[in-house]
């Protein structure tokens, strides 16, 4: 799996230390429909937390609330007390690559949005780290789905934020590519605080330190599990299968 993640001395991949989050009594409504109500959750620093729940339950809404993309009552407090603005990187459903920009320019999008001087060497290094050293000039349409997701991962890493929000980032690729991308993400994002939304129990088992199961309408936290061991976790073990049964049971209780 290459160099030890998080301890690399490579100047091109400076690591932003994770921050812990306390979500207190969050609520989100779209018009008359209440999606989330009185939702409280602690997200530990430097770990990967998975929000697991059926489609349409409000996981993405919770992610958007944390990102500040939707408003609502309740508080989101970082454990260092500073505001979250500018400390978040987002990786959404689908790759979200801009079709008119080259892969390299997509990785540099953050600098473009902030009118900063683009660091092309560092962007190129990021592409190399996700295993795509030669596709900088290619447009997204010429890349495979798995390659596009890797470019999106490089763009997320380029932002170098302590908090990374991921909304089912690998749901659009085939099973084998998904496994590889999960490995890559677990390696690259080690040490950061990652909040990831998924409907796939196996994905949660593979890459999370904390698994939070959401069920019901409006959604509530059903269970929080802290499975042992390092990530990415092997899924062909008895422990993983036990965990899967436990998660399925927790998911089933809500319906």
């Amino acid at each position, binding site marked *: 799996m290459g160099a030890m993640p998080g301890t690399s001395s490579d100047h091109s991949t400076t690591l932003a230390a994770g921050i812990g989050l306390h979500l207190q009594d969050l609520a989100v409504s779209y018009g008359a429909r209440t999606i989330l109500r009185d939702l409280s959750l602690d997200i530990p620093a430097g770990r990967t937390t998975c929000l697991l729940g059926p489609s349409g339950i409000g996981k993405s809404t919770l992610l958007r609330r944390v990102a500040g993309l939707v408003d609502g009552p309740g508080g989101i407090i970082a454990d260092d007390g500073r505001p979250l603005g500018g400390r978040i990187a987002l990786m959404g459903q689908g790759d*979200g690559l801009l079709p008119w920009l080259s892969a390299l320019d997509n990785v540099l999008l953050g600098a473009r*949005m902030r009118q900063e001087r683009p660091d092309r060497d560092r962007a190129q290094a990021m592409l190399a780290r996700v295993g795509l050293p030669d596709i900088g000039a290619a*447009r997204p349409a010429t890349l495979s789905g798995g390659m596009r997701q890797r470019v999106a991962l490089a763009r997320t890493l380029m932002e170098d934020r302590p908090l990374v929000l991921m909304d089912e980032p690998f749901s659009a690729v085939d099973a084998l590519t998904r496994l590889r991308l999960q490995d890559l993400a677990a390696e690259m994002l080690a040490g950061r605080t990652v909040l990831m939304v998924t409907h796939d129990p196996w994905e949660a088992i593979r890459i999370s330190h904390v698994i939070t199961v959401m069920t019901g309408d409006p959604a509530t936290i059903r269970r929080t599990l802290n499975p042992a061991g390092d990530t990415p976790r092997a899924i062909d073990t008895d422990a993983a299968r036990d965990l899967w049964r436990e998660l399925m049971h927790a998911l089933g209780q809500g319906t």
Partner: protein
Amino acid sequence: MNRLVTGIVTAAVLLGLWQAYVSISGIEAFLLPGPVAVMVTLFERFDLIMHHLGITALEIVLGLLIGTLLGVTSAILIHTIPVARRIGLPLLVISQAIPVFALAPLLVLWLGYDLWSKVAMAVLIIFFPVTTAFLDGLRRTDPGMMDLASIMAATRSPLRRTISLLIHIRIPAALPALASGLRVATGVAPIGAVVGEWVGSSAGLGFLMLHANGRMQIDLLFAALFVLSLFSVLLWLSVDALLRRALPWQPDSFAK
């Protein structure tokens, strides 16, 4: 090459039928001249027709440039500024609801017999397709892209963030929609210019056709019409090719 052959054969068959009808029926030349007579007139009066084409072409191209500039600006304002939306959207619809043909005499009265009343006609006729197409594009930006870019620009002031999102995400994403609007605009712009020339002018292909019609020079009318059509097709093909080259990332089933 194959397409060219198909086109030539189609044109030859249609022209052959036309010539055959004229020859067999013996219809008077001042009612319907044959294609051979039209071509002869086209070569005999070539300088005259080209002189008038130059003026009409200038009107069309100026109308396209000014109309595109106005349409693009309006679409961005209507999309970005709420007040502009409330005022601009009804005005936009009205601009299309009023028949430009009814406005032509007024424009000639206000702007004079020369170029600018025809440019204004062309601008009026293309303003709506350009503005609505671009506005549609600006409204349909992928929410995922907007979320991503908003978070990247989170530390900037709201105004700067809005401008960055507009320049780096919304406008480029709307360019294919604008291109569709420009293709429609290029197709209809000649109508504006020629109608303007009919209502009041001293030059241009529209003027030449009206003049020829009045003098029973139907062969000259057909020759001018042929040149106008050819120019319009070539203009559209050029704009289409230009737009395709400008947006190489846009999927295109016509591309090889």
